[in-house]
């Protein structure tokens, strides 16, 4: 198990390098020069050169990449060009907000999605199934920013239950979590339903019935257990999606976080910040796949056996 984990972590290294190269090089194709944003109109060329020197923008790209990667590995994410603060500070400020939002949304979609999927599968082709699958389709076809705005319209503007925006107190989390969570719920419910239905057709389920176990116990203790294996795997793989959803939703609700930071720095061409944001998201995605593998191994002894 431990040696497998180490091997699995080592496998992430080339992926990380590939991702970092992509992130680094892509951003140098972005048109627009952040220096322009900093210089007063009509500044002498010397001021410009000095500025480029200061941010290392005058050296060849591979050198810039090497320096950048070295710094990143030492935890130094550089200095934000526009905000003129260490990027690490900006990230440290934004990250907890995004983690809280993403984590709660993940929790919400897992709990609600699995519950709905189970109810739908148990009532296959009857009205609860149709109603849930209809709702799921609805949930997965609404753009998340729009869903957010509609929730604001209903719960903040009309009912006044929750704040329209900001990040103060738990009340400000409810609507954003719902907005991201509903899309995730749709995904989870759909996978849960399909894998429950697939699992209940397996041979060993017949034998469980022949052993005299009650159908509900068979569904919840055995079928659901099997159905959860793909659900967990896919959810872990989709952590990136949930964070992606967070990007738009943070902007809609004007919440601080990686998403708002990313969008703002993109529009300001603030490379170091954008790079750091993307790197964080990429790491989350990579950790998600790793987490998925670990959870799968915990849930399935056959996978564990294949690991050693």
């Amino acid at each position: 198990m431990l040696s497998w984990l180490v091997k699995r972590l080592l496998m992430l290294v080339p992926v990380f390098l590939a991702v970092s190269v992509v992130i680094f090089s892509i951003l140098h194709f972005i048109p627009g020069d952040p220096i322009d944003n900093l210089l007063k109109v009509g500044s002498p060329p010397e001021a410009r050169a000095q500025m480029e020197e200061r941010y290392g923008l005058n050296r060849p790209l591979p050198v810039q990449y090497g320096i950048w990667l070295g710094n990143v590995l030492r935890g130094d994410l550089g200095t934000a060009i526009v905000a003129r603060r260490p990027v690490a500070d900006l990230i440290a400020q934004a990250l907890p907000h995004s983690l809280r939002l993403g984590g709660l949304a993940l929790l919400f979609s897992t709990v609600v999605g699995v519950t709905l999927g189970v109810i739908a599968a148990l009532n296959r082709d009857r009205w609860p199934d149709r109603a849930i699958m209809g709702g799921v389709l609805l949930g997965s076809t609404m753009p998340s920013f729009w869903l957010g705005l509609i929730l604001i319209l209903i719960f903040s503007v009309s009912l006044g239950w929750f704040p329209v925006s900001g990040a103060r107190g738990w009340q400000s989390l409810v609507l954003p979590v719902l907005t991201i969570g509903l899309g995730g719920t749709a995904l989870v419910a759909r996978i849960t339903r399909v894998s429950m239905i697939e699992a209940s057709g397996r041979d060993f389920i017949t034998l469980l019935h022949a052993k005299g176990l009650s159908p509900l116990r068979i569904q919840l203790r055995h079928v659901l257990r099997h159905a959860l294996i793909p659900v967990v795997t896919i959810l872990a793989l989709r952590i990136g999606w949930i964070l992606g959803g967070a990007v738009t939703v943070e902007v809609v609700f004007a919440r601080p976080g990686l998403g708002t930071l990313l969008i703002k720095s993109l529009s300001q061409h603030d490379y170091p910040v954008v790079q750091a944001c993307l790197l964080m998201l990429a790491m989350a995605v990579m950790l998600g796949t790793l987490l998925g593998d670990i959870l799968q191994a915990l849930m399935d002894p056959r996978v564990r056996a294949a690991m050693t």
Partner: protein
Amino acid sequence: MSALLDLHAVSVSIGQAALLDGISLQVQRGQILGLVGESGSGKSLTAMAAMGLLPLIGGRVTQGAVRFDGQDMAAMTDAQRRKLRGGRIGFVTQNPMTALDPVQRIGEQVDVVSRLHLGLTRAQARARTLDLLTQLRIPDASAVAEAWPHQLSGGMKQRIVIAMALAGDPDLIIADEPTTALDVTVQAQIIQILGALVREKGTALLLITHDMGVVAQVCDRVAVLYAGRLAEEGPVAPIFAAPAHPYTAALIGCIPQPGMAKGSLTGIPGAVPSPMAFPPGCRFHPRCPRASDICRTTQPPILARDQGRVACHHPEAPL
């Protein structure tokens, strides 16, 4: 006293397809009945009907009654039927490779039966499980109980399935082709263990197989199914000595001899017709050497013969 398991003129359909047509069978206490036929003859369906598990595969009893110990299963509540399954009726499936829950330890899967049906505590159930595994000649029972299904061989898994069938201290075990999926060498062993245990405990056994050799080896009586109907039924010895139904005769002729491919039924030309295209009259007539005009038009009546029954227009015709 009434039979332990009594199928009275049972017909079964799945959707529009009428798959079993008026099957009557009895299994007495402590008796071993072999149920024989090619694939598609309706053996497994008979087992599912006797277990009351037809709804799982979308089937239903359209006519007749399944009685266990004198009680009509259709008249029971779901809870009563569940009490029978695993309790008074044990079940052994066809394919042990897929019969066990792959994410639960072996021991727990056996324990649950005696906890559920005999009301044993966790510790008592485990003791009983280990005892059963030992009776089934499983070496190092306590290690096996802690193992996962994927760590066991097919023959070992089938012994576990048999242990689960025995765990509820049943009056009847229904075994649906318990050895088909196993290696030839293991097959004989499993049949022998199952037969011996059943005799020892006085449990009745409905043994479904396509192998007349197995029937000759362990059964008291034999029932032959063809295309969803009963062809012949009776005590093993007279039937093997002088089969009345040409299909029975052909099956006996197929008992694998050394050097023959396993389970081959090359002795009978053609195949069991599909339920959508059962021929009129006797359903065996297209493949029957004795077929005459009446066979092509009229369903044969069931005649009594030698403490048994046969459904054939020409039961005595010489071969």
